[in-house]
């Protein structure tokens, strides 16, 4: 049994004109995460990465959102839990960090107070015990002079430090799963490297599973074990990180890798995937990528390809997946 199993997850939001204009943000996503492993979810803006994470975390407003499918943590179904129990699970067994730390932290309390309050309410710790643990956590995320800094408010920290405070909050209750939604997108490279190194270190110590959402292929190559690529609310390719970078088995992944500028050489022109992503309220017929795909044919325009297995444990949702695997090797 995997630590976290997501099966056929579907999320939609009603549109202004009712069901006909509903936004189908997630259309049947299945994932598995093992303890101590890092699964990266890659995909274009609007492909449903954050909504998937929010559904797993249980922080979507239902209604208006409609959520179907299954999310299991150590075999226990979360989607059917009563709201109170669900909150407990998402607070204690699953932690989350986001891109915007300022929005996640409360501006009117010191960071020490925010951490100790969490420990007192959830762990029933004493005031002084919670305070001591809060300082330890601030120190754990490598903020110098933790004892003094605990008395500071969020705005008194730099962007990278605020991100580290949010990580301290997310790991305070020692969750089994950490979901990180673009944790370093707002940071510059030197600070980004520090934050990713910190997350990896905590993971090594605690064996926590990490679901990392990002569109930075460099970060994926550095930290992920497995990769799931999303397009238009679906997973279109799943593989190990080595497999993906050695040769993608889906034209969208191929385009994504080709459009990345490299730091170790200078290319004449970058490849750019033509067109723009489809509107999730009006997906095209057949394969949702067919309007932008250089390999599209009549089958692609008519029939939606399912995520089908390929050799070596990988999978791709493309009618031409076998050929692709051959060309790229």
């Amino acid at each position: 049994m995997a630590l976290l199993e997501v099966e056929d997850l579907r999320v939609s939001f009603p549109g202004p004109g009712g069901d006909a204009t509903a936004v189908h943000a997630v259309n049947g996503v299945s994932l598995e995460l093992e303890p101590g492993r890092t699964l990266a979810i890659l995909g274009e803006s609007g492909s449903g990465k954050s909504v998937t994470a929010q559904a797993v975390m249980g922080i979507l407003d239902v209604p208006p959102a409609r959520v179907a499918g299954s999310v299991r943590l150590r075999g226990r179904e979360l989607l059917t839990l009563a709201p109170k129990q669900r909150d407990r699970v998402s607070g204690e067994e699953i932690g989350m960090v986001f891109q915007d730390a300022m929005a996640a932290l409360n501006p009117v309390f010191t960071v020490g107070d925010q951490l100790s309050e969490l420990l007192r309410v959830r762990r029933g710790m004493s005031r002084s015990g919670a305070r001591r643990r809060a300082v330890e956590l601030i120190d754990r995320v490598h903020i110098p002079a933790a004892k003094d800094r605990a008395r500071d408010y969020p705005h008194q920290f730099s962007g990278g430090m605020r991100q580290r405070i949010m990580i301290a909050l997310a790991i305070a209750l020692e969750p089994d799963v950490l979901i990180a939604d673009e944790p370093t997108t707002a940071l510059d490279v030197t600070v980004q490297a520090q934050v990713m190194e910190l997350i990896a270190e905590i993971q090594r110590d605690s064996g926590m599973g990490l679901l990392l959402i990002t569109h930075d292929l460099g970060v994926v190559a550095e930290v992920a074990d497995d990769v799931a690529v999303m397009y238009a609310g679906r997973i279109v390719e799943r593989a190990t990180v080595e497999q993906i970078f050695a040769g993608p088995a889906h034209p969208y992944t191929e385009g994504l890798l080709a459009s990345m500028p490299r730091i170790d050489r200078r290319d004449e022109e970058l490849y750019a995937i033509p067109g723009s992503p489809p509107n999730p309220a009006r997906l095209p017929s057949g394969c949702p990528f067919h309007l932008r795909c250089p390999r599209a044919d009549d089958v692609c325009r008519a029939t939606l390809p399912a995520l089908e297995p390929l050799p070596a444990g990988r999978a791709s949702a493309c009618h031409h997946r076998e050929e692709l695997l051959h060309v790229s090797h």
Partner: protein
Amino acid sequence: MSATDERVLRVENLVRHFPVKGRLPFTSGGVVKAVDGVSFDLRRGETLGVVGESGCGKSTLARMLVGLERPTSGEVRFGDAVVHAARGRDLRALRRRIQIVLQDPYTSLNPRRTVREILLQPFEIHPDALDRKRRLDRIRELLDLVGLDPSVHLDRYPHQFSGGQRQRIGIARALALQPDVIVCDEPVSALDVSVQAQVVNLLERLQRELGVAYVFIAHDLSVVRHISDRVAVMYLGKLVESGPEATLYDAPAHPYTKALLSAVPVPEPVGRGDRRRILLAGDPPSPVNPPSGCRFRTRCWQATETCATTEPPLAGDERAVACHYPLAA
């Protein structure tokens, strides 16, 4: 690229200090030395990349280059004219020749104006740039040039476009008056890789066709390498190193450049455990009280006493570095 030896911009010892308020009313908290003595030349038709951590002064520099911010001292020369000294007609003429594209495609366009109105606006400010009867043709050409369809897009509002399309509208607006220089302040930072590739390719094509010179500011070092002929590295308001793209990336001479480059995640999972990365300790120091001597010394692994007492000047011409002990190639 078709860079010539003609200088379109000469930047001479540019300084911008911002006074900050003290903790008590009516007291002074000193000054933020946002830009503190920056000099460089920009040649016709070339791209100069500017990189550096958040807060090092890149946007302040950009605003001074286009005359939106007055320098505390120093000057920006365009031909024979000094940008911030120009008044009235001269100033308007200069503004035509030097344009800016900003980071955020979501806030840099007026949401209540259609694309037609947004693109006509530069001609309302500069009525003598083009005869009224020919303006509509011109903006159709501009849209076409940036890959948007005038018959479909002319009367839409910004919110009806994707991020990449909005950034292209911003570029079309900057091109309207056929400038010699476009200052791009993080023009692709908010876009994901596939859209980023479209915008970068567009900028390069326009340079080939129109001979416009770019100052391209970004914190993504891979994009900067891809687009730039020369690159300048900024740290706490000063340039610490500059040179041709290939030599600077392949053989950095300043320790900060080296650290910055080593922090960039490499999109290649094979051998990732063996990669050597220089993790800079801590955050950049405050620009209110920059360290004495070399500003990088508080984070530099080879700092000596000389570095604390004597500021290293930016020495060299085509390839310049500000360090007492530059790294060997």
